[in-house]
């Protein structure tokens, strides 16, 4: 046995290479994680971050490369091996068994037992403590996970990971569905674990979060290392440049007659922006647009769907982006679903262009020019086994149909166009969506909605898992659509983006709209206050 | 209802007799049903006609016997799917004082009071003789089998095979181990595939109605009907037509109506305290084109089932 140096890093990955068929996801990637560090793993969508950490956890096997845990060679055969070696992971795609309860999911794979028989009593108390610690005591231990919202599920995953007593904890976009408050709770946990000597790999597209919590970083681009270092010595600006290979102008679109909402946003934007913003050329720096508020496109009148806690009234105008802010479980998703006819309505009604619309099904809503982007892209956003073309064109076939038959060529050409537009990384328009990275899948879902060319867009966390540059681009798209007179309902748990792109913002608290104001009337702090206390 | 489990009960109330066939969807069982119904009508008793839910399933037939015992009847007339498997349910019946008469196929042991059946082996012998006569004792032939584990057809097959090897060594058996399976369609396919391989076959024997009919269709379709000497078993309108057309050169017929009739009659006689013979042979008959229009054979070929319509 070789002697292990005492100061060996917690984890060393060297020359990791991984191919998926014709796609080369990782090409000789290195990563060194010091003991007790929070190490940020950064990169664009499809850069290979998830693939790298899946190799670390044992979910995937590398084609080539070396790994050492605390100086000892480490070649996990399967996730169980990884977990036993002290590597615990929160996967990007939610990783829960829907029929099992919260308790069963949290203990899955690490059940306490004697002679194969379960011992549950002590465990339940610990889980309850953890959930309380994360400020989510309302999540019941005996509720089947399929009854939880996406946000709550993420909390369950986090609980599972932190109860694992791992030496290395990997978090692949743990906060993509969380609101600010929950994120902060998570950071508290991270700091505590760090103090206990746990090393953490943290993947996120929220760069200011990363700055706040990380000690070191590694940046990947196209499956290769492009930079690494200590966070304290780096600027966000430089990191972004490493990630995307170019500079970024404005994160948020410029709308005429509107100053950026809050000091925080202004701060981020100035930090993100470079001195010389080219007004054209670069995708991040479009010309300023003008949002002209038109007549009411959609109005909810005491609408209450079966899953909603309270009735909701709201108006959305043409040419505006109306943000819906709130905490996890505030009821925004349910509101969108009820509007779109995915959930049956219990009371109240919806007016579309001033006309009362009762009991509309999703296909009828689409006929009336509505489109919905689901927060649950794998569950109901995408047909994962089908090609990009199929997914992108699924809600509008009109242009490719003649005498009842489709022109496959035209259709895939349109898909390719959208792939270019949103910079979707894929082998081609015929590739199955399942093989794309998380962020690229989200972009496909978005491309589907944009291709549909709806008049009223209902967007539920549209930028979930999308990298900084693409986010800027998506904000820009939204802004331009609004400028063309479309109405957009924009649900997000990430307040800066609400403040950055919305014309008005409504705050949800326990299923109710507590306040609606123009974006300029809100600040990060006041949004948070309204969302957590229900008082505007 | 359900009071009459005592045997040899008085004449006052109507007797209830269960008749349990092997299956319910062949013409053959229909004829047995008709015979049983005829006897029931004449003797003023009631019959309960019930076969296994899946055709030819031993386990299911045991279940039916047990259920009928539970229900309570005065006697059971049973065509056992297996000479061993049905012993115990029959014993159960006897223990419950329900007498049993066996029809169609044999049962080991002596728990039943009488056995009313065709001599299946003899049927195979008749078929082999007819084949030998038709081909003048030499030529390539098929012996097609019906279903794995079906005892009565296996007897016929054995009778045929043994007679051929003993009396007609000139008949060359090209095929003797192929089973048609339970349905006409599978028999049809088997026939086609065999004829594809051995188009110069001169004689074919099939041991029951569904196999005869399936293979007949295959012969007709490949234009060999009439040229190939074909001996089958049992009757149905299409087979009668084929006999008339010269596509079939002999049918071995049993007398299912008689079997059903005698089964019920003997049971009633037993219940009424008469002694009955313990073996009744209902006979097998070879019918050929020339003899098919005699009244007796006509009755065998197309039994009168009209009693079932009422």
């Amino acid at each position: 046995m070789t002697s292990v140096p005492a100061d060996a890093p917690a984890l060393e990955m060297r020359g990791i290479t991984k191919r998926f068929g014709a796609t080369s996801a990782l090409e000789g990637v290195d990563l060194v994680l010091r003991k007790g560090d929070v190490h940020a793993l950064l990169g664009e969508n499809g850069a290979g971050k998830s693939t790298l950490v899946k190799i670390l956890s044992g979910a995937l096997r590398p084609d080539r490369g070396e790994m050492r845990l605390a100086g000892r060679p480490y070649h996990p055969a399967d996730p169980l091996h990884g977990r036993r070696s002290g590597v615990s992971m929160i996967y990007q795609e939610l990783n829960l068994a829907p029929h099992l309860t919260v308790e069963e999911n949290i203990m899955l794979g690490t059940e306490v037992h004697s002679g194969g028989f379960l011992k549950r009593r002590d465990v339940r108390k610990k889980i309850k403590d953890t959930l309380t610690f994360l400020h989510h005591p309302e999540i019941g231990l005996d509720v089947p996970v399929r009854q939880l919202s996406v946000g709550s599920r993420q909390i369950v995953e986090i609980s599972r990971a932190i109860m694992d007593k791992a030496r290395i904890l990997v978090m692949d976009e743990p906060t993509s569905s969380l609101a600010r408050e929950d994120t902060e709770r998570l950071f508290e946990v991270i700091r505590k674990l760090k103090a206990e000597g746990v090393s953490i790999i943290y993947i996120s597209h929220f760069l200011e979060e990363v700055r706040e919590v990380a000690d070191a970083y590694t940046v990947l681009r196209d499956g290769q290392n492009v930079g690494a270092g200590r966070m304290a010595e780096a600027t966000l600006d430089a990191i972004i440049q490493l990630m995307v290979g170019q500079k970024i102008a404005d994160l948020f679109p410029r709308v005429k007659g509107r100053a950026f909402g809050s000091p925080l946003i202004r701060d981020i934007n100035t930090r993100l922006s470079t001195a010389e913003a080219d007004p054209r050329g670069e995708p991040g720096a479009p010309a300023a647009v003008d949002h002209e508020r038109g007549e009411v496109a959609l109005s909810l009148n005491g609408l209450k769907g079966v899953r909603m806690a309270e009735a909701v009234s709201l108006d959305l105008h043409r040419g505006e982006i109306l943000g819906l802010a709130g905490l996890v479980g505030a009821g925004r998703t349910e509101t969108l679903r009820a509007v779109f006819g995915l959930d049956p309505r219990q009371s109240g009604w919806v007016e579309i262009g001033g006309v009362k619309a009762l009991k509309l099904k999703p296909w009828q809503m689409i006929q009336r020019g509505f489109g919905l982007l689901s927060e649950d892209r794998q569950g109901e956003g995408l047909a994962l086994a089908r090609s990009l073309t199929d997914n992108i064109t699924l809600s509008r076939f009109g242009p490719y149909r003649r005498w009842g038959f489709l022109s496959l060529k035209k259709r895939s050409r349109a898909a390719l166009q959208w792939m270019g537009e949103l910079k979707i990384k894929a082998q081609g328009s015929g590739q199955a969506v399942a093989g794309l990275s998380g962020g690229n899948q989200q972009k496909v879902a978005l491309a589907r909605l944009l291709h549909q060319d709806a008049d009223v867009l209902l967007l539920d966390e549209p930028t979930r898992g999308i990298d900084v540059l693409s986010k800027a681009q998506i904000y820009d798209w939204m802004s331009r659509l609004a400028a063309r007179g479309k109405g957009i309902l924009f649900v997000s748990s990430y307040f800066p983006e609400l403040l950055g792109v919305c014309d008005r913002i409504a705050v949800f608290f326990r299923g109710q709209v507590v306040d609606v104001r123009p974006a300029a009337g809100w600040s990060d702090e006041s949004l948070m206050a309204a969302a957590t206390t229900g008082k505007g | 209802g359900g009071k009459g489990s005592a045997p040899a009960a008085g004449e006052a109330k109507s007797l209830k007799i269960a008749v349990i066939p092997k299956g319910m969807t062949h013409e053959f069982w229909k004829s047995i049903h008709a015979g049983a119904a005829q006897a029931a009508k004449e003797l003023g008793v009631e019959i309960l006609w019930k076969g296994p839910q899946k055709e030819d399933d031993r386990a299911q037939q045991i279940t039916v016997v047990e259920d009928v015992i539970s229900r309570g009847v005065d006697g059971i007339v049973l065509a056992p799917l297996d000479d061993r498997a049905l012993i115990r349910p029959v014993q159960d019946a006897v223990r419950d004082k329900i007498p049993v008469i066996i029809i169609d196929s044999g049962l080991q042991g002596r728990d039943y009071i009488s056995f009313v059946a065709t001599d299946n082996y003899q049927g195979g012998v008749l078929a082999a003789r007819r084949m030998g006569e038709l081909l003048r004792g030499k030529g390539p032939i098929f012996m097609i089998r019906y279903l794995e584990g079906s005892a009565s057809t296996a007897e016929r097959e054995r009778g045929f095979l043994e007679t051929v090897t003993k009396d007609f060594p000139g008949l060359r058996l090209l095929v003797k181990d192929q089973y048609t399976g339970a349905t006409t369609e599978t028999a049809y396919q088997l026939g086609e595939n065999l004829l594809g391989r051995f188009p110069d076959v001169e004689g074919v024997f099939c041991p029951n109605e569904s196999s005869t009919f399936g293979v007949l269709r295959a012969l007709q379709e490949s234009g060999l009907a009439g040229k190939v000497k074909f001996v089958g078993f049992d009757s149905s309108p299409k087979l009668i037509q084929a006999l008339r057309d010269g596509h079939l050169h002999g049918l071995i017929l049993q007398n299912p109506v008689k079997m059903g009739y005698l089964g019920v009659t003997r049971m009633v006689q037993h219940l009424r305290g008469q002694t009955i013979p313990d073996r009744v042979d209902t006979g097998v008959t070879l019918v050929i084109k020339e003899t098919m229009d005699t009244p007796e054979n006509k009755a065998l070929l197309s039994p009168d089932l009209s009693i079932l319509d009422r």
Partner: protein
Amino acid sequence: MRIVRQQTRLQTLINLLAPFLGLILILAIFSSMPDIQSRFLRLANLKSVATQSVIVALGALGMTLVIIGGGIDLSAASNIALSSVVTAYAINAGLPPLLAVGLGILTGGAVGFVNGALITRLRLVPFIITMGMMGIARGVAKWIADNQKIDAPLTWVNELMAKSPRPSWLMLAPGVWLMIVFAVAMAVVLRYTVFGRHVFAIGSNEAAARLCGVRTNRAKIIVYAIAGLFCGLSGVMEFSRLTVGDPTVAVGLELDIIAAVVIGGGSLSGGEGSILGSMIGVFIMAFLRNGCTMMGWPNYIQEIIIGVIIVAAVSLDRIRHRRPT
């Protein structure tokens, strides 16, 4: 909140009773038929239905496990036939009955193990593997039996399914007792052991289970092997009942077994199901058949009724589980 609580309690009560609803309904219907009234619920009839159910029930115990784990086993019925033939063959060959029984059960287990191994190694859907195995096992059974049934001498094995068991204090056939014991054992395994929970997790989301460190492949192989062992035992019972080894027995029985599990609340997409439910499913089907036969209804009526009942029972279960609309 208070209303919610009450609703939940009512729901709990309904949920507790509902599985039995279908069974109770069927018992009620038949025992009110004037023709068979007095005999339907008699001890003798109940005993005979219990004995008749053993074979399907044992198969259903394994199938419940398989279905909860997100799989399906179409080879169950063929496996039963094969095991019964092997048992008969072994007894016929002069092996001590106990050894023959063991051999029969192990044959079933081996078939199940091969199913599991192929499913996990080749990563194929269980439907296909077990459909292939269905043909293979049936073919092998016919081969061993040389296309005939095997007549084996009577031994104590044939007493296992005797409606009137030898030591009369047993009351029920030993096979029925075995069924009860194994049903309880399996219910305990599913509810109180790590393995049981893993089976639920695999059926609910196999990828998640794997990523959480569940040895999914091992668990699945065990699941199919256990199912196979139950088929083996069921085959022994079939032999005991028939007193012969019949390679053509139980054709299509896999659908009865699956139906029982599904009527009992098992979900073919995995993650749901219970032993109690499956047993109720078995008895619903058994009493239906029994009642129809006692009534002397034609088989086609029986076929239609059973078809309707399958649909109805599952719809009922569905409505019961649906969230209030």
